[in-house]
Structure formats: structure tokens, C-alpha cells
């Protein structure tokens, strides 16, 4: 709870897709590992073994939430590092078989930037189109597959517009091929929102991030199925599984483990609660004139995501005005980027640039309440109206 700039003691955090507050239970689990159980997990004396056991407990906890084996979990500094390790690691290890990679136009920049890097290194990358709700075109995927294809990377949930992608179907398609094609799923936005089963998905690699599920920042995980050929992309001291060198962030990993357990324990309740709040928020926002919901509805949409374009309003101004009312949200406005281009995801689903600039993303977490949604719905229409009043752009013209 903090005071907002209007002096009101309100804080409605609706940007859980960007990062989340650490759960009290998670912090409590972490605390001893800073000051008492502070050993280095590679050392076989008691303090070190205690730390190693804690890390292994977290491996088991995280593995349990995605139907993997504990040894298949490598802890990283976040999903960004997981994605880089997965995509470049598999690309390098399999380049002798082929240099073709397939991903989509709506991936997170942490995937796209790595793919662009690989293009500069001589790989060929195809970026699959999506439909107007953000669903990946699986028929196009089948057409693009060649003998040279070594890797497909798709997020199970789109972080901007909440589309739940047909990853199981994609896994099925890939399994049907004669040559092994590795399948990487970036599940940073989907973790805790949809059930994840690496076996059902046919995923060989899967990226997770703790700070999206009420765990700490600076910790992520990469699932690498046994026998997956993968090269390290960084080098140094102590290489765990020879892939991710450096002293492990033990308290962070313990926090991730606890966050994973809590996520699993509360999954059904959290998801149904988020879905209820999502639908309420979405319905309320749609009553504002000239407002468009981006992405699909119902079961095919992340229970945590509401993406909304308010025509005639600019997103950054909107975000900052909502902040003045104590409400934290994200914007897809280009005004916040160096490139000054609208979000690549909104562009991919066909939202016109002028509309995309007025996009706000509301994302829910475990701790949001109905009152917060009520409050938000009391504020947003006023802010939209206020900004439209000062705007030279008429919503009806967009």
C-alpha cells in the first residue's frame, strides 16, 4: 500500500503480466537462505549440502508443476536467459542437421531478438502469422516445415493479448515428422494461467520466470528434456549440467520453488477468481464507447489478461493518469519505446496503428480483488473521457 500522487491511499496493481509482488509465503521461505543457510550449493560440507538440498527441493517443486523430472530443470536468471539458452543452445547443437527455425510474429522480444541474432549468424527464421485474435496459423506451420527445420518456438500464452496458443496441436504436428524437430515453449506468460504438461505439449524445452507468479525477480527456469542436444551459450565457473555457469541464486531459487508450490496448490481457485475478475473488467470496459478488446474471449484467453484499445486516447498518458489514481497498468503505446512503432503483436492481429497507440493492458494476479475492479471501473471511464476531451483525434473517425 502506498500513497498515490493525488494523496489517496490506494494501490490497485493490474500489471501482473509485467511483474508481481512476492507472496508472503515465498519471502518467508527465502529468508533463512540469506543469513543462516547461506552456504554455496556445490560444497559438500553441511552448509553447502543444506543449500544444495534446498535447490533440489525447488527443482522438484518446479518440475512437478509441468510434469517434468527434477533433473530436467535448470535454474536461470529469468525467462529471458532461458529463452536465449534454449533457442541458441539448440540451434548451435543441431546446426549440422539444418539451419531453419520457425517461430511466430507475436513472440516476446526475448525470443524475437534471439532469432534475429541467429539470422545474422546465417540461420533462416520463419515468423508465422496469426489471425485477428492472435492464434498461430498451424496450417502455415505445416507448410513451412522442411528437412532443414531443427527448432520451433512458440509461447503457450501471448503476454500482450492473452491468446492461448494451440501448443499441443503444434507438438502433435512436430511429433509426426520423420526428422526430430525440437519444440521450445516460452511459458513465461502462461505459467499459473493455464495447465502446463511438457509431455502433452511434446515440448523439449520450456521457459519459466518466477517473478510472473509471485516469486522473486532474477530467477527463472529452463526445462530441457533428457537427451536434448544443447550447447551452452555462456561460459565459466561451475557449469550446472554444463549449461548455466555461476553461483546459484539460492534464496531466489528457494523462492521460485515455493512460488511454484503455491501456484499449484491455488491453481483452480486462482484461475477461476482471475477469470471472474477478468470478465467483469472486460464487460465494464466495453461499456466505454469506442473501446475494442484485443484477443479472444472465454476459455481461449488467459484468465489474467484484459487488453483494451480506447480510440482517440494515447496509451502512455492513460497509463500515467491511471497511475495518478493509484492504478498500475501497462501500455502498448509506441510513445514508450525508442522505435516509436506500435506493438508488434497488435500490428500482427491487424489493429490499426492509431488505435494500437491507445492500448492498455490490465493483468491480474492472485491478490486482486473485486473491489479493486470496481474501483478501476469507476476511474477508467473518467480518464478516457478526460483524455478524449483534450484530444484532437475523434474516436469515431478511427
Amino acid at each position, binding site marked *: 500500500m502506498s500513497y498515490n500522487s493525488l494523496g489517496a491511499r490506494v494501490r490497485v496493481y493490474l500489471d501482473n503480466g509485467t511483474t508481481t509482488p512476492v507472496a508472503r509465503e515465498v519471502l518467508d521461505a527465502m529468508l533463512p537462505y540469506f543469513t543462516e543457510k547461506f552456504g554455496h550449493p556445490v560444497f559438500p560440507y553441511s552448509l553447502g549440502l543444506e543449500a544444495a538440498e534446498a535447490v533440489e527441493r525447488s527443482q522438484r517443486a518446479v518440475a512437478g508443476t509441468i510434469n517434468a523430472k527434477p533433473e530436467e530443470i535448470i535454474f536461470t536468471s529469468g525467462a529471458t536467459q532461458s529463452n536465449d539458452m534454449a533457442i541458441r543452445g539448440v540451434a548451435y547443437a543441431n546446426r549440422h542437421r539444418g539451419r531453419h527455425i520457425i517461430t511466430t510474429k507475436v513472440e516476446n522480444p526475448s525470443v524475437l531478438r534471439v532469432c534475429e541474432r541467429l539470422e545474422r549468424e546465417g540461420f533462416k527464421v520463419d515468423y508465422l502469422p496469426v489471425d485477428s485474435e492472435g492464434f498461430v496459423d498451424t496450417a502455415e506451420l505445416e507448410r513451412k516445415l522442411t528437412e532443414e527445420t531443427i527448432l520451433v518456438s512458440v509461447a503457450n500464452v501471448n503476454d500482450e493479448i492473452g491468446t492461448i496458443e494451440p501448443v499441443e496441436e503444434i507438438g502433435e504436428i512436430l511429433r509426426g515428422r520423420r526428422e526430430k524437430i525440437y519444440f521450445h515453449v516460452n511459458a513465461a506468460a502462461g505459467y499459473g494461467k493455464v495447465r502446463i504438461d511438457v509431455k502433452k505439449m511434446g515440448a523439449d524445452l520450456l521457459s519459466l520466470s518466477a517473478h510472473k507468479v509471485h516469486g522473486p525477480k532474477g530467477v527463472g527456469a529452463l526445462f530441457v528434456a533428457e537427451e536434448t542436444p544443447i550447447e551452452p551459450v555462456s561460459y565459466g565457473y561451475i557449469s550446472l549440467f554444463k549449461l548455466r555457469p555461476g553461483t546459484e541464486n539460492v534464496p531466489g531459487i528457494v523462492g521460485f520453488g515455493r512460488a511454484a508450490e503455491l501456484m499449484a496448490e491455488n491453481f483452480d481457485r486462482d484461475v477461476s477468481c482471475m477469470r471472474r475478475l477478468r470478465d467483469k473488467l472486460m464487460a465494464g470496459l466495453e461499456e466505454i464507447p469506442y473501446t475494442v478488446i484485443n484477443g479472444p474471449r472465454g476459455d481461449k484467453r488467459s484468465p489474467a489478461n484484459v487488453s483494451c484499445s480506447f480510440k482517440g486516447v494515447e496509451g*502512455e498518458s492513460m497509463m500515467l493518469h491511471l497511475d495518478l489514481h493509484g492504478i498500475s497498468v501497462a501500455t502498448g503505446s509506441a510513445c514508450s519505446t525508442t*522505435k516509436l512503432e506500435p506493438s508488434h503483436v497488435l500490428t500482427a492481429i491487424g489493429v490499426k496503428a492509431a488505435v494500437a497507440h491507445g492500448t492498455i493492458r490490465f493483468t491480474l494476479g492472485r491478490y486482486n480483488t473485486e473491489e479493486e475492479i470496481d474501483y478501476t471501473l469507476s476511474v477508467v471511464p473518467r480518464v478516457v473521457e478526460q483524455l478524449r476531451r483534450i484530444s*484532437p483525434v475523434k474516436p469515431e473517425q478511427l
Partner: protein
Amino acid sequence: MTVDYTERGMLKYSEKLLERFRNPKNIGEMENPTVVAEEGDPQCGDMFRMFLKIENDRIVDARFLSFGCAANIATGDVTVDLIKGKTVDEAEKLQIKEIAEALGGLPAIKMHCAVLSYKTLKKALAEYRKTRSGAGPQG
């Protein structure tokens, strides 16, 4: 959202700018302006409309509308403040950096907002000159 912020702190606004954004003084339509000018494009995410009331070659009132970010609103507001009460000749001498300075500086990636409000002003003043010269010398 997953826009590529290149650097943390890239969007750190000055207190002056935020104050202008929160409480712009010169925003809104104007009845019977002498000239109206528009610059920018909603496609690009920012647009200004500027209204000037000019009497005896002096800007007696000015207002603006903005579709844009916090920096956009604040630069528009401060630009209008900087020229209100000035003669057209004086207003023409306004420089982009004066706008940024009056806001206590602008983040590098927001300099284009100052440029846009400057261009809108220039367009309005040019428009005024054009109508004046068409109507012959006045006042």
C-alpha cells in the same frame, strides 16, 4: 507490455514536466481562434492542434489539444505558455530547446514531442501570416 524499452530510466520525466502533464493550463478548444494548425498523425501516436487568438500581431490567447504521451501534453502546454502575450515576431523566435528547458529537460526519446509542438506553432504562425498578407496589412 513487451515494448522494447532500451534502457531503464529512459522515461524518467522531470517534476516540472509531470506537473504540466497532470495540470495543463492551456488545454482545450478555443472559440473563434484567429488561426488553427495541426501537426502529427494519430498513426504515429502523437498529434497537436493549436489555437491562437491574435490581435494587433500579438498572441492574446492560445490553447491546444493533444493526442499523445505525457511529454506531448506537457510540451504543448509549455509552448503555449511561452508564446502567450508575445508578438508574432517574438513567437517566431522561439527555439525547440527553450521548450525542453522550460520543462526541466526532456528524456532523449521524447525530444520529438518538443519538435512537434514547435512545428505546430510554426505552422500556425505561417498560417496567420498567410491570411494577413492575403487580407492586406491590418491594425
